């Protein structure tokens, strides 16, 4: 395939250049476009999320609830208890698949004797998953999940109920701060395989334009916001 693919590549790129009435970008023109790529320009600032950190966290919670997630704000020592109580409140089994993340391990799960946790990726039969989050976006109540050995993507998608533990310090104003944190953490040229940004439970409006929750991903999303 590669030999013909080379021809196809040239055909498309030359077609573009012919239409634009120029050859391959070179000299100052190329430098200016490359400079824009290397130093990304931010678009218009969205004013509503430009707030001090505590108000930013409050705005995140407000938008998450508008988008059909539920939110609990608890101390770090109460996370495991809140998760167990949430499962009881919603008549869900006391079993969950949890992301194998050292950050999550700090929350004292062994104190919840009735809660059975399996650490690993999501399986088709899982009812409940528990994961952390890379960030929360205050502007829209959106969670940001980054794939890796400590966070399998399938946990965000397969279970009926997704419980997310989010640290207040990870709440940012908008996408732009998320991109900056990703570049800082992973380097400029090596994003992880998947960055999921998720705003509330899965939904569809495909039958008569009426919103129904739980199309393919989780029907319920519960966000536990902790100070640390």
């Amino acid at each position, binding site marked *: 395939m590669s030999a013909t*693919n080379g021809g*196809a590549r040239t055909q*498309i*790129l030359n*077609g*573009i250049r012919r*239409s*634009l009435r120029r050859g*391959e970008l070179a000299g100052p023109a*190329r430098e200016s476009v*490359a400079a*824009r*790529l290397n130093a*990304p320009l*931010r*678009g*218009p600032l*969205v004013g509503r999320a430009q707030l001090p950190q505590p108000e930013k966290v409050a705005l995140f919670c407000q938008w998450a609830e508008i*988008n059909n997630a539920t939110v609990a704000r608890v101390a770090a020592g109460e996370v495991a208890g809140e998760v167990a109580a949430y499962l009881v409140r919603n008549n869900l089994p006391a079993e969950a698949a949890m992301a194998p993340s050292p950050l999550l391990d700090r929350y004292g799960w062994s104190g919840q004797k009735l809660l059975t946790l399996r650490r690993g*990726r*999501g399986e*088709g039969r899982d009812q409940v998953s528990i994961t952390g989050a890379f960030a929360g976006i205050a*502007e829209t*109540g959106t969670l940001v999940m980054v*794939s*890796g*050995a400590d966070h*399998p*993507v399938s946990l*965000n*998608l*397969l279970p009926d109920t997704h419980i997310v533990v989010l640290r207040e310090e990870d709440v940012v104003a908008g*996408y*732009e701060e998320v*991109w900056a944190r990703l570049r800082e953490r992973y380097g400029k*040229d*090596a*994003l*992880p*395989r*998947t*960055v*999921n*940004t998720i*705003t*509330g*439970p*899965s*939904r*569809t*409006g*495909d*039958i008569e*334009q*009426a919103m*129904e929750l*739980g*199309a*393919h*991903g989780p029907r319920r999303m519960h966000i536990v916001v902790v100070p640390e």
Partner: protein
Amino acid sequence: MQSTSRNFHHNVEDALANPNLQDSLAKLKVGFSERRRQAVERLPEFEALRDAARDIKNHTLANLDFYLEEFERKVTALGGHVHWAPTAADARRIITELCLSVGARTIAKSKSMISEEIGINDHLEAQGIAPIETDLGEYIIQLRREPPSHIIAPAVHLTKDQVADTFLEHHRALGFTQRLTERSDLVAEARHVLRQKFLDADVGLTGANFLVAETGSSMLVTNEGNADLSNTLPRMHIVLASIEKVIPTLEDAAVLLRVLARSATGQESSVYTTLNTGPKRSGDLDGPSQYHVVILDNGRSSVLGTDMQEMLRCIRCGACMNHCPVYGAIGGHAYGWVYPGPIGAVLTPQLIGVEEASNLPNASTFCGRCESVCPVRIPLPKLMRHWREREFERHLTPKAVRQGLALWSFLAQRPKLYRLLTGWTNRTLALFGRGEGRFRALPLASGWTRFRDFPAPESGGTFHAQWARHGGARPRP
């Protein structure tokens, strides 16, 4: 997909006489457009974001070759593969070969308009590979073997009862023998049936809302999560995207995402926005081991540098059709090919030829609502007018219209004769129409009066006569 755009007039008559379609379209007029209005009201920066979105797309199109090469470089560096497809046939061949290379039997497919454009499903089926549409709307119309009628709500032409009948017919063999009446039950049944399909699929085939040159990522926006299951569970992920989907940076994506969801469904944000960059990494517990991006041209590069270039800014939100009085009356199928509504009227002649699709740019009142809501400010009426001009140049305009235009042009160059004739016509119509104020039938105008009344002119004379009587042109005070 075989086009029926030539039969546009016949399609329209069918659409207007279809009560289920008319019920569905009535909901569309108050649904998406009202929710968009509210979302825009909540975001004071919206108009500035539209300007920025337009500028990002213009900049990218002016440097498209550079950004595509950068995108390819990044994808390759991270272990992915880029395939270039000048034509629809090339894209079909590449995708089929990739599927066969892993012995694929079924593929989980996430909604992609370009996949409709290249007709990949029929092609795969002919090779013994079963493509399963996983977006709920696409799944419904795949069962019914219908094309989509809207670019973001493919089954918007159907009622709940029609969906219930379709599910009963096709899911009976899987043990679902009860006819459902609640929307939530229909969604749950589809979820159950499709979950197994996801787990069984060998390949996930998705489109892309954007390709990010800076990072070599494909970006997908959905509400259901079907695209994410498609790009995570199977062992190969194939992304099919056209050349104009590339954008420079993640910051540019942030601007475009802010206008996309609000313009499309009126949501502040779609539920899932996902960046996929390369295949599964060592240490990852899930994800595909192969990541391929097929970049399709299919005639788009020839639009660059022409007076039609602005159509390539489109981010496929569907706002133009949600706000179009013509789409609102006839729905998407009447347009006869993949892309309906105002953007379809502009894209279709480009992609399948103006000879085939010349009816579409004429199916517009030029009311301008489409342009007024377009998140990237595409001047859709202007582009439709360009197509009408090209149609005229190529002598594709119907004979009666050409003769009428020739007659008008003859008279317009002879002002005295023009005023004499229009004055006489005006007085005659005013005299005969004064009773009802309108005509149910008129000689030589049956094409108009067959569907609507012709208003009788009020007494007072032609525009020219009234203009002269009121003093004609005056210097401004």
